[in-house]
């Protein structure tokens, strides 16, 4: 590597703008006020521009490019909020139809341009990735030379360096040696670290704040890596399952290890009489009983004991009982179970009397478990009822035949065969809620509705996310870096005697107002002239 030797004797890397040690500007026509960003150190991006790698490096190390990436991401993100994203539209509709139906031709275009899944699109991901690359290269391009420059900075500075600082003054001091201890004491009172060399002073504080931006960029990179790990299989479980009251189910995503029993699902609303007086008005406005107060699943968590044997009922050991509520997930072994949805009063059992249509005489009652119906119900004395077909969620399909939409008993319908002593071949009856069809002619007997039982169903989300701690770490580092960089600043004051004049120069990376106030206090009561803000001269 080539080097540049300064007149002070320090050897600088090529590309250096201000000598790392004494600050002498190397440029022929250095500006009246020195550009102190990155201490005038030799940045790779400003020095090399020959190979492809140089060009790529220079592209990503530019703050301008970084800001453009941020702005493009910002605009893209805003576009994604114009209409709801795909994940927020009703799950039963097809997106292609939904957007056009709801939002007209704009919605159609929105869908066709892929904005309905904007945040999952390849180009949005690419934008985020480019920001990540820019973060890394920007930081490396600056932090290494900056570190070198701050580490190697000398106490004695070149006169040009001092005169071209934004805050500068020169004073005539008769007895500089006597003044020095007083100045040093004042600087120390303001918590400056003081270095002295031949009567020249460098007072410095808050240098660590210079690392703030790089620390927060590291935090962001860790966060982005954490977000990327989400795509690695096994890092992340996200399942939803419905569980009925009284039911014990394997928890999906746990590979058969855990089971959950729903003992009871509770749904509560705010009722006017039961709540505090201050809430009355608010409850009145939305209506008593219209505002949800609590969604809760009283659950028992079980763990499987022994190996998984297909076809055999698992042996379970109770782990714990827990009331899962919104904001209070059940947590165990990195898994978390969240209350996300519910359905009240799902049909669970229906009962029917077998009656004679003419006399209304009853010959017994059957109760059909709507999830596990039996094929035949024996009522004794030669009376039997066979269940020929069962449609849990009944409708007539396009050809007019009975069919079922799902396995959930929302609208159960049955084809019964009633076998009685006087009708040994049986009579067939199609029985649904509020309707009976006798497909094979007039029957003597009928299945009359006798009652039903319902229960609540709870929906729970299962989550396990091994990336959370990485995201947390990244976030924490980001916050530390941000606070480090924003709430502290790096201030330096140089005091030097050159040719009988005492020069005072000062620099800070931000908050000049604070530095000026501090300098005023330091200069007060001494022969030193308060440094002038040379940036004001131009105006």
């Amino acid at each position: 590597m080539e080097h540049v030797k300064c007149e002070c004797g320090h050897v600088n890397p090529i590309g250096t703008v201000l000598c790392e040690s004494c600050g002498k500007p190397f440029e022929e026509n250095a500006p009246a006020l020195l550009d102190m960003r990155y201490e005038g150190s030799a940045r790779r991006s400003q020095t090399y521009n020959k190979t492809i790698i140089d060009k790529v490096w220079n592209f990503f190390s530019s703050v301008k490019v970084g800001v453009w990436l941020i702005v493009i991401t910002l605009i893209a993100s805003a576009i994604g909020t114009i209409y709801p994203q795909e994940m927020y539209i009703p799950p039963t509709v097809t997106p292609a139809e939904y957007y056009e139906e709801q939002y007209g031709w704009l919605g159609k275009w929105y869908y066709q341009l892929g904005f309905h899944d904007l945040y999952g699109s390849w180009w949005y991901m690419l934008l985020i990735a480019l920001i990540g690359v820019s973060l890394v290269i920007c930081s490396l391009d600056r932090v290494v030379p900056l570190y070198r420059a701050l580490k190697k900075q000398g106490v004695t500075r070149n006169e040009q360096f001092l005169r071209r600082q934004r805050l500068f003054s020169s004073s005539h001091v008769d007895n500089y040696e006597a003044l020095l201890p007083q100045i040093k004491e004042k600087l120390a009172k303001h918590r400056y670290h003081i270095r002295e060399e031949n009567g020249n002073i460098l007072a410095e504080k808050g240098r660590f704040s210079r690392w703030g931006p790089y620390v927060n960029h590291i935090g962001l990179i860790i966060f982005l890596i954490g977000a990327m790990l989400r795509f690695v299989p096994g890092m992340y479980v996200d399942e939803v399952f419905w569980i009925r009251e009284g039911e014990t189910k394997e928890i999906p995503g746990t590979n058969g290890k855990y089971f959950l029993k729903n003992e009871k699902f509770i749904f509560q609303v705010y009722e006017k009489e039961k709540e505090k007086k201050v809430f009355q008005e608010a409850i009145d406005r939305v209506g008593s009983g219209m505002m949800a107060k609590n969604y809760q699943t009283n659950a028992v968590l079980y763990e499987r004991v022994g190996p998984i044997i297909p076809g055999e009922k698992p042996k379970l050991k109770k782990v714990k009982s827990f009331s899962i509520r919104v904001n209070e997930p059940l947590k165990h072994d990195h898994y978390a179970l969240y209350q996300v949805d519910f359905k009240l009063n799902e049909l669970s059992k229906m009962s029917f009397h077998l009656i004679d249509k003419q006399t209304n005489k009853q010959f017994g009652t059957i109760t059909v478990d709507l999830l596990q119906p039996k094929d035949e119900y024996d009522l004794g004395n030669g009376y039997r009822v066979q269940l020929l077909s069962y449609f849990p969620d009944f409708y007539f399909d396009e050809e007019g035949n009975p069919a079922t939409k799902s396995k959930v008993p929302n609208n159960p319908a049955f084809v019964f065969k009633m076998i009685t002593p006087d009708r040994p071949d049986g009579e067939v009856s199609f029985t649904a809620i509020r309707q009976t069809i006798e497909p094979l002619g007039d029957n003597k007997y009928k299945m009359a509705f006798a009652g039903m039982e319902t229960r609540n169903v709870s929906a729970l989300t299962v989550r396990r996310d091994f990336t959370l701690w990485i995201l947390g770490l990244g976030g924490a580092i980001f916050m530390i870096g941000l606070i480090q960089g924003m709430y502290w600043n790096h201030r330096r004051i140089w005091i030097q005697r050159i040719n009988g004049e005492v020069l005072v120069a000062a620099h800070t990376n931000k908050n000049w107002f604070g530095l000026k106030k501090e300098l005023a206090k330091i200069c007060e009561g001494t022969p030193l002239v308060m440094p002038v803000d040379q940036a004001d001269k131009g105006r």
Partner: protein
Amino acid sequence: MAQLSSTLLYIAFVLYLVATFFFGGAIRDKKAKSGPDRWAMIGIAVTIAGFVAQLGYFVTRWIAAGHAPVSNLFEFTTFFGMMLVGAFIVIYFIYKTSLLGLFTLPIAILVIAYASMFPREISPLIPALQSDWLHIHVTTAAAGEAILAVSFAAGLIYLICVVDQSKASKRTFWLEVILFCLISTLGFVAATTAFRLADYEAKFEWIDKNNQQTEMVYHMPALVGPHEGKLKTEGRMEPLVDMPAIINARKLNTVIWSLFAGAILYGLLRLVLRKRIAAALQPLVKNINLDLVDEISYRSVAIGFPVFTLGALVFAMIWAQIAWTRFWGWDPKEVWALITWLFYAAFLHLRLSKGWHGERSAWLAVIGFAIIMFNLVAVNLVIAGLHSYAGS
């Protein structure tokens, strides 16, 4: 307790108004400056008194409700106004500029007045909000936004000072747009209050986007009516035009009325002043140290950005993970918090590395505030998402 709370808020509101006048007096007093500025001293004292009163409102309402009063649009916006005053007090003691008070306090007053146009009763919490993270997340986010808003006030002062009013330009136009928006907020408050005092109510039957017949009650005369709306209340104005079902016609109607009232107020001001509003304000700010105002604007962003990040992103993610099972779900409010964050990140990079100081920085501060307000107003009222203030 709830009654006391409302009274305290009212007192705070009046005190902020009084303090604004004193800060106004401080500007005139500058010309004959000798010793400490009496007007400014009284101004800041009254501001602090107002802040304490509003803090009293906050605490008593918290006690009455049993939860932090940041659970609906009224409570959140009021709190935002309080934080804005708090941020101003802190910045005032660093920089001692009374002019900042003359601009920040009216913004806070507008914010609080705007807030009180929404339902004000103390409401119990829906399950998703029943968490300590409610006050941790919401208060920190509001504080961050308020500190960032101070940079808007400083930026506005800067622009009023530097934008050349001797001839019309893009800059004078946009500066007037900013002031018009502020005046329209006043227009919203005026129109809402006027029709509320008149007890205006018009009921409509209309067909919503799912083809269901529903009812909608207007509290302002309907310039735009709901989809296939039929006026049910006698003697009320028939809408000039019906809206399609996907547009919330009542909200749009309110926006139109606000802009209309704002335009009248703005027009009257222009008639009286016979020049641009910004031109009329310019003499007030002519003695200001521009570098200092620029510094205040930047400092507010530097202080507010970490607070905003912590409240609106970090705490938000933690709570979202607990309540909604995922720390990030691209809900519109989340996205707009991210947009705000990205914007201020760009602001800081432009300022630190590209040297965007002074006027450019001031325009950015204004845009930043516009984004924050968009998130507060439009995302709550127009783009309904998961965040519970939507629709209230």
